[in-house]
């Protein structure tokens, strides 16, 4: 056993995290752009035309990663908010605050692209199907979280109140999820399912490239936003003046 111990909490301090995050951003942002360009190229020029849906299915290359990110980021938001609340880790609370807008944007993109795809594929812009409705609820949960935090002036209370709301929202997620089976839906047959079309390898490649792009983009943007939040909240801290100088 070496007597040199790793300080796990080092980067929980904004003073240490701030410069490190600044150095990390390009490592996520640049690959995100590259993956996005390659993924879009594969999706729009390499992947074959679908024999059932024609060209319009290509919207799904953006739609599916956006929907996944929207759901995943909410769970991450709740985890970070919970950690920030339970352990008084202010960086984790800031992280939750930084994730929220990105998650909301992805959820919004997935709703819009889904609607654009639904028009040619289903013949309607919107269907009150369980999947669509649950995504809409997810959007409301994001909006609730953001507006609750922004209407509380005291930062500590804003973080904790947001954490309670985020965690309660997470409990609601499985209820929403299983409503696929409970919901008395006329449009059940039109639900997207994994087996509804076989994917060509180039289609899968495009989807996963764009999923990677969304992941890296999210990390980069969250880090940028996190740095702004740190700067806003730690205005008085002497280390910030040093870094800025």
């Amino acid at each position, binding site marked *: 056993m070496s007597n040199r111990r790793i300080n796990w909490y080092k980067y929980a301090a904004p003073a240490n995290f701030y410069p490190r995050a600044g150095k990390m951003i390009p490592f996520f942002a640049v690959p995100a752009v590259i993956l996005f360009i390659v993924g879009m190229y594969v999706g729009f020029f390499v992947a074959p035309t679908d024999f059932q849906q024609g060209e319009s299915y290509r919207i799904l290359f953006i739609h599916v990663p956006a929907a996944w990110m929207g759901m995943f980021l909410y769970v991450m938001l709740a985890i970070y908010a919970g950690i920030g609340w339970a352990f008084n880790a202010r960086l984790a609370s800031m992280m939750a605050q930084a994730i929220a807008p990105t998650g909301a944007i992805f959820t919004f993109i997935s709703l819009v692209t889904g609607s654009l795809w639904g028009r040619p594929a289903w013949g309607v812009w919107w269907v009150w199907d369980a999947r669509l409705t649950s995504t809409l*609820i997810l959007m*409301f*949960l994001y*909006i*609730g979280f953001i*507006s*609750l935090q922004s*209407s*509380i002036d005291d930062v500590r*209370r804003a973080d*904790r*109140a947001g954490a*309670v*709301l985020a*965690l*309660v*929202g997470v*409990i*609601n997620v499985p*209820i*929403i999820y299983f*409503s696929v089976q*409970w*919901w*008395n839906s006329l449009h059940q047959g039109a639900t997207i399912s994994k087996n509804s079309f076989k994917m060509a390898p180039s289609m899968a490649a495009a989807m996963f490239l764009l999923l990677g792009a969304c992941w890296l983009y999210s990390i980069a943007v969250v880090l940028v936003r996190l740095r702004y939040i740190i700067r806003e909240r730690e205005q008085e801290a002497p280390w910030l003046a040093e870094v800025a100088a």
Partner: protein
Amino acid sequence: MFSWLVWRDLILAWRRRADVLATVFFFIIVTSLFPLGIGPERETLKTIAPGVVWVAALLASMLSLGRIFGNDYQDGTLEQLVLTPQPTYLVVLAKVLAHWIVSELPLVVIAPVLGLQFGLSENSLVIVIASLLLGTPVLSVIGSIGAALTLGLRAANVLVALLVLPLYIPVLIFGSGAVQASLTGASPQAWLLLLAATLVVSLVFAPWATSAALKISVE
């Protein structure tokens, strides 16, 4: 302590009867607007009745949420209640129970009369009452989380709607599902059981979240 708190809230509500009645009349007016807006065809009204009654109940109960903690927060009583040696969980449960008796029970009582406006059969009216009896306590207890989180905030009323209505959606689905099932002749039992399960789960977990939110808001 528990029964004392419930009793105290009931007396306070009794002295401000107009507030309580306003919620009930809101419920009546909202449900009466639909036949006027949609037209008097019996079949159409019958099909929309479950949704209308339930959505109106949701909105009415949401309007009254500010009363659960609002007055006590303003005069400082809430702080004392949180500081008492009794668990905050019990305080929340007592206040939610009082709120349910004051603001939700009248809705359950008046709902069958409104159901008659929509031409529901006796069988369906019984289901309306049963589903509301099981569902409205869930609205109170989940709503108390939103009420506690927004204590003393700017635009708290609008914010409560934003926070609480998405969480009400399962209750809305189960409740109107039960009435819908009784209309089509199917058994509403499954929906009522789901409502009962929601009630049990939310009664166990939601007061806990509310007391956490109260401690955050009061400190």
